């Protein structure tokens, strides 16, 4: 359509503190709503996500592809940013008129990664969610709030956390994460 290249909200902003905060590159994200037990919905999700269906409340990740359970009737599917158009066409074909909806939300979101031993502490400063190993084990998709805005958080290991928020609040969330990661602000709780 246009020659204008897409950019992320913060041009890949970074902050180095007690953890490393990094805005992630453009990421394809598709919201799929429908009856998650229905075969066409499952097949549409798996066909693009390239991973098994996650258990309730979890996220299945493989490289830059993933399927996240967002609610009893909603999945968030991650794929390459420039594959979303093709993916949506394929999903529509698989859904074949079932009562379900797949929508490209890639440009409505921003994504961050936290790297470091203090990721649980840094997040716990900003969210009321239980960030202990039991409360938020790796692979758990926890929708919550970071200070005053909605966010979804998941860990892919004990030192790596990922955050998705609305693009419109990306500078706010980056500010929050950077402040919570300031040198000298170690809590050492988790």
């Amino acid at each position, binding site marked *: 359509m246009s020659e204008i290249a897409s950019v992320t909200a913060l041009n890949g902003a970074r902050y180095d503190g007690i953890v490393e905060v990094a805005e992630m590159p453009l990421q394809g994200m598709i919201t799929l709503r429908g009856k998650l037990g229905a075969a066409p919905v499952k097949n549409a999700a798996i066909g693009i996500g390239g991973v098994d269906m996650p258990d*309730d*409340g979890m996220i299945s990740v493989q490289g830059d592809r993933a399927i996240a359970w*967002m*609610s*009893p009737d*909603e999945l968030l599917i991650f794929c390459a940013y420039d594959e979303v158009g093709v993916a949506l066409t394929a999903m529509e074909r698989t859904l074949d008129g079932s009562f379900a909806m797949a929508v490209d939300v890639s440009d409505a979101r921003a994504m961050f990664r936290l790297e470091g031993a203090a990721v649980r502490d840094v997040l716990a400063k900003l969210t*009321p*969610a*239980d960030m202990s190993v039991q*409360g938020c084990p790796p692979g758990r998709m*926890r*929708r*919550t*709030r970071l200070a005053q805005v*909605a966010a979804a958080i998941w860990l892919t290991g004990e030192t790596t956390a990922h955050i998705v928020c609305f693009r419109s609040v990306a500078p706010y969330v980056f500010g929050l994460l950077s402040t919570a990661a300031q040198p000298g602000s170690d809590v050492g709780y988790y």
Partner: protein
Amino acid sequence: MLILTCPYCGVAADETELTPGGEAHLTREAPGSDDAAFEAYLFQRENPKGVHFERWRHSYGCGKWFHAARCTQTLQVYGTYPAQTSAPPQAICDKISGARPGWSWRLFG
């Protein structure tokens, strides 16, 4: 601080992740109802020191409405249950009876 477990997604959500939706199990008086019933629907609410039933929405999460049974005096949470019901489940009523024998709330108890 109040922590309620969303019956849809199983998340133990803090009060600040939820939106309060007021009293549970109201009957919406439709056109044709008499004035007294409509007034009661609009304005009359329980204000108990003890067992109470409320609606909450998991707004910073799955987005679903659900019900909660709790004690306004001790802040004990008896349980949460889905929105698609007009009465609390028996298991929750039994739990309340264990903690507060002889309780009653509107038509229940």
